[in-house]
């Protein structure tokens, strides 16, 4: 294991002041980490056990915030709100992950292996950032004239006589939510996969070819295993963003589709901070479990 090696190194360098300077060097990050990550997280955890009324939060130790979240979840006939919400969010996660993975891998592969010059790679890379050139909200609102009942797509389909009535599910549906997610977050998949691919030794590909591998076999047996780190990092990005998102689901789903983020937002809006904190803790736990599972697949630290 890596940690054992470090210990051995430490024994070999017994100079004391180097240790002090190492501690000092680590201090700024540690403090920042403590102040802006650990402390707020601990406060959130503490507040999630507090009581509240209309206008104040009351220091106490109560489990009622958690009880409210899982209210009715024991029933076998009707699925409770929380399970339903997580189910819908997890489903988005899975679909968006699968689509962005295929797209991201294909685009990154194209950029890394088919585009010859670095200049062209840079230009095409910048093209991938186009979705981020306008604000999130404007971008999402502009889907309406495209996908709406009287939008461009429906007008085109109708004038081509492919349909006689506007297709309703193009907008404010699961479809439009997934579409917007893919449009937004494929880039987060492209970057780490591209980064992993660019470091693959080209000689390996040639060797595979020489050994008689077909194009598909090269991808499956050489490129894919060597880009695993990038895939996992990209997956972590996409999964964590989709799990916490409420804006995209809200706007593209016509606010009719529930998301965990939306529930938290409504609760903070009504000053129900302890309830929101409890939801945030549950969400954090779920996301951490997913990330943990992903890191089981690939040991990121080892690969980097």
């Amino acid at each position, binding site marked *: 294991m890596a940690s054992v090696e470090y210990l051995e190194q430490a024994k070999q360098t017994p100079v004391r002041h180097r240790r002090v300077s190492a501690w000092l060097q680590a201090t700024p990050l540690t403090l920042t980490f403590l102040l802006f990550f650990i402390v707020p997280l601990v406060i959130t955890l503490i507040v999630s056990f507090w009581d509240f009324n209309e*206008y104040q939060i009351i220091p106490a130790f109560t489990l009622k915030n958690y009880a409210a979240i899982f209210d009715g979840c024991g029933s076998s006939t009707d699925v409770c709100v929380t399970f339903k919400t997580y189910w*819908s969010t997890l489903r988005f996660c899975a679909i968006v992950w699968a689509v962005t993975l295929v797209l991201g891998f294909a685009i990154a592969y194209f950029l890394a292996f088919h585009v010859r010059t670095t200049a062209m790679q840079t230009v095409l890379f910048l093209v991938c950032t186009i979705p981020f050139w306008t604000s999130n909200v404007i971008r999402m609102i502009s889907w309406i*004239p495209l996908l709406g*009942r009287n939008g461009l797509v429906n007008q085109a389909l109708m004038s081509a006589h492919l349909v006689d009535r506007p297709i309703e599910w193009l907008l404010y549906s699961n479809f439009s939510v997934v579409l917007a997610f893919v449009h937004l977050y494929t880039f987060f998949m492209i970057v780490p996969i591209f980064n992993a691919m660019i470091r693959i030794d080209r000689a390996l590909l040639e060797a595979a070819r020489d050994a008689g591998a077909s194009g598909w076999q090269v991808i499956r047996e050489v490129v894919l295993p060597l880009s695993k780190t990038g895939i996992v990092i990209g997956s972590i990005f996409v999964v964590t963003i989709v799990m916490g998102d409420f804006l995209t689901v809200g706007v593209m789903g016509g606010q*009719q589709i*529930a998301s965990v983020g939306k529930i938290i937002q409504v609760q903070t*809006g*009504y000053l129900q901070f302890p309830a929101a904190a409890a939801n945030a803790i549950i969400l954090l736990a779920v996301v951490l479990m997913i990330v943990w599972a992903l890191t089981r697949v690939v040991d990121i630290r080892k690969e980097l």
Partner: protein
Amino acid sequence: MNDEQASAREADTTNAGISRRTFIKGAVAAAGIAGFPYVHAQEKITLRYLGTAVNQSAEIAKKFKEDTGIEIQYIPVTTDDVTKRIITQPNSFDIVDTEYFSLKKLIPAGTLAGMDAKRIKLADKITPVLTKGEVNGKKIGDQGTAPKKVMFLKGARSTEFSATPTEWMTLIPTTYNADTLGIRPDLISRPVTTWADLLDPQFKGKAALLNIPAIGIMDAAMAIEATGHVKYGDKGNMTKAEIDQTIKVLIEAKRAGQFRAFWRDFNESVNLMASGEVVIQSMWSPAVTKVRTMGIACKFQPLKEGYRSWASGFGFPRSLQGKKLDAAYEFVNWFQDGWAGAYLMRQGYYPGVTETAKSHMQAYEWDYWMEGKPAAQDIKAPDGQLLEKAGTVRDGGSYSQRMGAIACWNAVMDENIYMVQKWNEFIAA
């Protein structure tokens, strides 16, 4: 209403110093207008004005500075954030413009001071719609958090409401209005006369609902009561059973595909209506106006069950004192003096004191906005943009017709926490 308009209109703040000359001019004008022999301090006074962007017009701040030399610095946030800041950061503003219905949360928190009615010059001219719940002596609907229920305090620093008028007021009214359904008359062939039409299967997939739970559920209740499914004791203060019934009907309607979308934001409601995605939804008067200025037919449809109404007003934090307190009272008095009132009326709102606004309006404007008469000339917005052509009549008619038909007021229910929980269930259904 008016949630999240902060993003729509950024308030500007100018921090330029005042020259001695304009300062004196301002001071003289202020003394003349307010009628109080205030001696202004030599240092510049800046009032931090917390509220939603809707009343925070740059024109009003500019005019007030011209008149008094006092600077207004706007802090535009959303309705929810106004409430949050009053409770959690009461020292971060000098004046707040908030809605009456949130007082049920704000006053027990004890961060706002009572407003001394003796220092409000036009206190007895404040519209009886808000103080007594009457129009021309006729009682109007008082379901929900009607302003008259939360208008007075038992003492200067009391955290309890007084049922009878006292010297201490919670808020001094700025604007109020009544909301109803907005429709696209060009896409709806039959007349719409009742809130029940919001749930009519004829508009399946073409209706929308406001996704601010406290207000959305009241719109829903207006519609459900109109269909005859549920009879409410008080739509603004439902029992748990009533909340359950309401959410049940809503979930059924949602599963049947009645709603195209829910919205939270002023611009979202305008977009839904203008694009034709939605043809019937609860709307705010200025949103209807905005759709119409885009050249699209849109009607603020009066309904037989009446309106859901709201009102907002000025309050001061308890920490406000000395010269800043004097300046804040001066601002409130100036606000009621008519110029600002006329400005707000041209946006489609009603000001807390209507009589003084009249003297700042043309007769034809007054006739259109207040009397419900056909416009004798083209009606223009405060910025000079054409709102209505000559000859049109205001939707819903005159002031007394509109205000007289109020059915309920925006509210915070006693079962608010339960309601929010059930509303989330409805969204997840």
